[in-house]
């Protein structure tokens, strides 16, 4: 696969309630139990070829006694409810990832960092190796821009793990499109060429940057559209222009 959408992050003030609400709203199942330091994600698989929504939020508010810009951002964008806060693209090799790192004149968050706390961990002891770029002092998500991931071990990809069996569950058949703010040209400028944008199932709505909606195919029923405001609707990206 060339550059593709890997997953979409949905920031939540209460990941259990949000996952339960989304499951009731859409019939999409989710699985739980993956965490990274003071945050955790409930994962909504979207079907082949392997995409997912991660419902992410704080699960350890004790950590918030030490505030950082990122933690404050997450609080600010979830104070009024769920907001899409990240578009996460994917590539299939380290070479491709290095290409994007080079384009952004950046480094790579390495998948082989020996510190378990630097990775998502699962209740069965599995530590998810995941490399990404760019490496910046401030996440590009806060600017409404996507980053890029590479999974050395895709067999344990989050999109392929079994979900809890929810009532009236539907089977997702794949990501159809993602509605984002801004323009195709803005995305092309960020990714390094319109050819990258043309390969992605993106719809541009001209609003502030970030994800505004996700459309998922579903077996035996109409497509499911999950619409939530982008994080930039709660906290303008201009706040982080410096």
């Amino acid at each position, binding site marked *: 696969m060339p550059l593709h959408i890997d997953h979409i992050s949905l920031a939540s*003030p*209460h*990941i*259990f*309630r949000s*996952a*339960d609400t989304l*499951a009731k709203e859409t019939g999409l199942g*989710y*699985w*739980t*139990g993956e*965490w990274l330091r*003071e945050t*955790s994600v*409930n994962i909504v698989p979207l079907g082949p070829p392997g995409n997912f929504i991660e419902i992410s*939020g*704080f*699960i*350890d*508010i*004790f*950590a*918030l006694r030490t505030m950082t810009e990122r933690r404050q951002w997450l*609080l600010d964008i*979830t*104070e009024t409810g769920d907001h899409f806060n990240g578009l996460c693209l994917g590539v299939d090799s380290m070479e491709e990832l290095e290409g994007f790192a080079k384009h952004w004149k950046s480094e790579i968050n390495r998948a082989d960092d020996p510190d378990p706390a630097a990775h998502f*961990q*699962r*209740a*069965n*002891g599995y530590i998810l190796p995941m490399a990404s770029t760019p490496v910046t002092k401030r996440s590009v998500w806060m600017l409404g821009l996507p980053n890029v991931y590479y999974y050395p071990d895709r067999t344990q990809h989050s999109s392929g793990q079994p979900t*809890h*069996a*929810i*009532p009236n569950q539907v089977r997702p058949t794949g990501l159809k499109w993602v509605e984002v703010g801004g323009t195709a040209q803005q995305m092309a400028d960020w990714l390094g060429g319109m050819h990258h944008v043309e390969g992605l199932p993106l719809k541009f709505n001209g609003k502030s940057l970030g994800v505004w909606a996700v459309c998922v195919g579903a077996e035996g029923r109409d497509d499911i559209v999950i619409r939530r405001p982008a994080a930039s609707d709660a906290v303008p990206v201009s706040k982080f222009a410096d």
Partner: protein
Amino acid sequence: MAAILDHIHMGCTNVYTTAFDLTKTTRIGHYDAGFAGNITIGQKAMPLGGSAYIEIESIVDPFATADVARRPWWYRRAAAVKSPIFSGVCLRVNTVDELREIARRHGGAIRPKISTRTPPEGPQVKFWDGPYAPGMADPWEAGKPTWCCWEDRLYMHPSGQPVVNAPGLVQPMGVAWMEMGGTRARMQEWLGHNPDDLHMKFNGKAAGLYAIGVSTDAGEVEIRRPSATGV
């Protein structure tokens, strides 16, 4: 009929690391139990065999609990001691009538609002508990067990649900003993029956739970944490 052990509450600041560390050290599995109460609580459950389980809870909603006074007392104590704590012991009776009688004997009633939990699988599970009275301190704060009666979904009891499959897990076969503070006489007075029925032993410290022994197919496992009454 004497009450039996239903669950042991473990309060903490992070249910993920607490449950993971507990499984890592005991090899007893756990699973995600969803969320409970007034939307502030996230929960993991660790079945212990013998129809009992450990309920691991923490706050997960930074907004609902921005007012520190809204945070549960056990959360504040776990945060203060920087460790998961044993917050309380909950016993189980079979009927609401039994629960009502026990609550009345302790000068209270059944808590008017049923306790609910929404598991990831969907339908809520509910139980009544007591003793409760307006203004009455939670008996757990004084190290005293409480009682509960599950609504009509005992077949979905947390002790009987599958755990996350992890390498090397043991099979828990029941709580062999509970190390309590206080004295046998005081506990017998509170329970209304012999604490031996619950395999309690007493260490003479402040009332509360200090440790449990869990029988497993690989031998007995001891779980020891600070007691909520001692912090």
